[in-house]
Structures are given as structure tokens and as C-alpha cells.
């Protein structure tokens, strides 16, 4: 699917069913689309951070009489903002989790204990148990430039081995507990 917001005729039926709009007065999906359509770059500050509040539930899209692909439009607006450096701190941390551990939500002591209790391996058979797998992820994220995109100006410590991976995991994790 691609963006087709030119089809929008501003009826507002998207905003009227949006669960986020119901909770947050500042979150107005119809308005964001209109601003995007008009290319109102100067008003961008009105969209960020709000555009990142969308739960991607597709309710607006299901309710749109013009078959506008609203969720694709939201994602495209976000991507543009992120590439201009306008990423929310919480999302940047989630991105760093991916770069460092290959998971947006990496394991922790509690999860490992539960796994053992259930008779599962302490570490799941994912990149968390594969140094080679993790290094493949890091290679790919370097090739796409994602590591730079989510880097702090002061580079975050890169952890090289699955064994070491753990210790730093806990401290960083408290910052964005399950934030994906």
C-alpha cells in the first residue's frame, strides 16, 4: 500500500472513531493528514510528538469513506520526522535495544528464572543465544544506517559478546521497560 492522502475530503470520520484522539485532545488524525497534504513544514512542531501516539489500530482507516490508507500515511510522516532527527527519546532507546541486543525487549533476570522454572532454556534460541546471529544483526543495521539513526551524540557502548551483553542489559532496560 502507498500513501493516497490526496483522496481525503476532510469529513473527519477518522478522528471521530480514533481511540487515541478520544484520550488526547491534541491527537487529531484528520488535521495531521491535512497539514501533511499542504506541506506545512513550519507547523511540524504541532505534529511531533503527537504523530508518534498512533497505536496503528486501523480504526480510522476502516471508517474512511474515501479508502485513504491512513496508517501508511502516519508511518510515512513519522519516517520523515525521524530522518530529520525528530525521534522521541523513548523510541530512540527502543532502537538502541535493537542495535545492542537484536531485540526491542531483551531478556532480564526475572524472565530467565521463569524460563528455567518452565523447563525452557534459560536463554531463548534467538540472537540472545547466538553471538554470530547478533553480529549479523549489527552488520545489517550498519548497512542500513540504522545504528547511526538511533545513536546518541555520545555513542552508546557496543557490547560484543552474549555473555557481556547481559550486564549492561539490566541498567539500560530500566529506562525503557517494555517500551516497544
Amino acid at each position, binding site marked *: 500500500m502507498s500513501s493516497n492522502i490526496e483522496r481525503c475530503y476532510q469529513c473527519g470520520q477518522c478522528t471521530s472513531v480514533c481511540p487515541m484522539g478520544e484520550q488526547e485532545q491534541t491527537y487529531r488524525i484528520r488535521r495531521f493528514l491535512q497539514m501533511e497534504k499542504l506541506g506545512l513544514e513550519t507547523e511540524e512542531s504541532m505534529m511531533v510528538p503527537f504523530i508518534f501516539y498512533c497505536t496503528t489500530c486501523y480504526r480510522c482507516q476502516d471508517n474512511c469513506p474515501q479508502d485513504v490508507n491512513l496508517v501508511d500515511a502516519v508511518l510515512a510522516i513519522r*519516517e520523515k520526522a525521524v530522518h530529520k532527527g525528530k525521534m522521541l527519546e523513548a523510541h530512540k532507546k527502543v532502537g538502541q535495544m535493537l542495535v545492542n541486543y537484536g531485540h526491542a525487549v*531483551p531478556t532480564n533476570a526475572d524472565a530467565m528464572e521463569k524460563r528455567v522454572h*518452565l523447563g525452557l532454556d534459560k536463554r531463548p*534460541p*534467538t540472537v540472545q543465544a547466538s553471538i554470530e546471529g547478533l553480529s549479523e*544483526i549489527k*552488520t545489517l*543495521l550498519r548497512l*542500513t544506517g*540504522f545504528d547511526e539513526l538511533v545513536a546518541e551524540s555520545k555513542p552508546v557502548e557496543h557490547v560484543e559478546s552474549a555473555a557481556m551483553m547481559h550486564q549492561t542489559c539490566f541498567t539500560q532496560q530500566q529506562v525503557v521497560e517494555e517500551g516497544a
Partner: protein
Amino acid sequence: MSNLSLFLGCVAPNRYPGIEAATKKTFSKLGIELDDLEGASCCPAPGVFRSFDKVTWLTLASRNIALSEEMDDDVLTICNGCYSTLKEADHELKSDADLKKDVNEKLFETGHEFRGQHDVRHVIEYLYQEIGVEGIRELVTAPLNMRVAVHYGCHLVQPLKEADSRLVSGDITFFDELVEATGATSVDYEDKMMCCGAGGGARAAAHDATLRITEKKLENMADAQVDCIINACPFCHLQFDSGQKDINEGSCTSYGIPVLHYTQLLGLAMGLSPEELGIDLNVTSTSEFIEKINDGSLMA
């Protein structure tokens, strides 16, 4: 039909491993071997990573699918978010040769290739279409007797609109039917198809607002007097389970509805114990629920 590799994602193995255990145990009772997908990563999450950088999202998704293809397996997901990412990435790459070439150039650097000869399945649609409601019913040895609130989740329904629209046109019932095959009753409640609140990166961006969405759903579920919530997604599971604690603390409410993934419900109906399925490991207490399983009052 291809063999299956189990794609774990992040939240199931690293927060709710009971869902992983329940999937393995119920599939073993179904006589289906699930291969481990060694070295798999985050899917990566559809709302956040797809909107940060689409090429990154496609590249990591294609690597996960490629790992499964190397074993000649279809991918089985147990999470709506993973399903949305892998199903949609798979579809995009299969239908756009240039995109596939681009992604493969990167994947070659790590020794993998996305061939696009396999499929991505979600556990719920897989069970519904490959085993069938009757097939599930036949495998139930400990029929249940409880009222449940089924939560489909947005990213189970949305990808199916493109992949298998038969399941999602008109009244959507496939998940309810699977639930009822265990003997449980799927109770109707207001705004049943509404989002859990957590998706799209909103949980990180606007935590309190997402909890208010969750609270509305919980209110409607509680009004319907259900014994538990049944979901198909560890991220919805997390939002409902740990969300109840946050909501109770913030709004002086006292929600205490047990939250189960469908594989855990199915496990109970196949005679597995709540502990084997990790139902005792939730944030919101399930001890009363477990007592009622054990004393038979929630069993037929």
C-alpha cells in the same frame, strides 16, 4: 504442507515465557513438530521500526524469514505484531523484485538469502484453517466451562484482510470458534474489536493515554462478567496483564482479570496444568482462577 519453525519475537520469550511453553506443549499434543528458529531477532516491531526506517524494517524481517526458509519451513508466529511485520514484509518482497534484490544485497553480507518460497502463519489462523474447529474439539480431553472475553487484536485482523479475506469479511468469528471448541463461552462485550492501546510505539510514546484506552476495554470486559481475557498476542497480553496493575495504582480501581494467550487456554483444555503453561506467572494474580480450575468449578 511445509513444516513450521516457531518465531518467538521479543515479548513472549523475554516477558511471558509461559506462552512459548504453552505453544510447544499444545503443538506436541497436536503431533506437530516446531523447529527452533535459531538466531532469530526482533521481527522487527511493525509500528516503531517500520516507521523509523522502512529499509531496516524490511531487511531484518527478511533475515528472519530467510532463516526459516533455510530449514525449508513456513514461519509460525504467536504474536500479532510479529505476524503483521513478517506477513507484510514477505508480501512486499514477493511482489517487488527490485526491493527483493536490494534487501538480498544486504542479506548476502551475512550469508543469507530471502527466496520468497515459503509462507508466514499466525497460530490462530493456522489452527483454524489447518486443524479446524472440529479437529481441536476432538483433542480436548478436559473441556472448560468458563466465560471469556476474546481480544482479537488489530494486527491479527489487518494482515488477514490482504492475505485471507474470507476469515475477516462480515462478522469475524474464527477466533471465537476456536475458543468455544475448548468448551468455554466467548461472551460478547461492548467495543470488542477495539485496540488494547499498546501498539504502534504508543506504549512508549504516551504510556498513560494507552492505559486509558486499555481501561475502557477492561471496563467493558468486566461488565460482561468474564472469568478471563483470551488474546493472540504477547504485546496485548502485556498491556492487559501488567496494565491492570498500573491502572489500579493510578485510578484506585481493583481490576483482577486473568489474562491468557489462546495456547494457554488450549493447554488447559488438553489437560495440562496451569503451572506447566505458566498461567501462574502473570503480574495480575491468577491464583483464584487456578484454584477454580483445580477444584473443577471452571471445568465442564
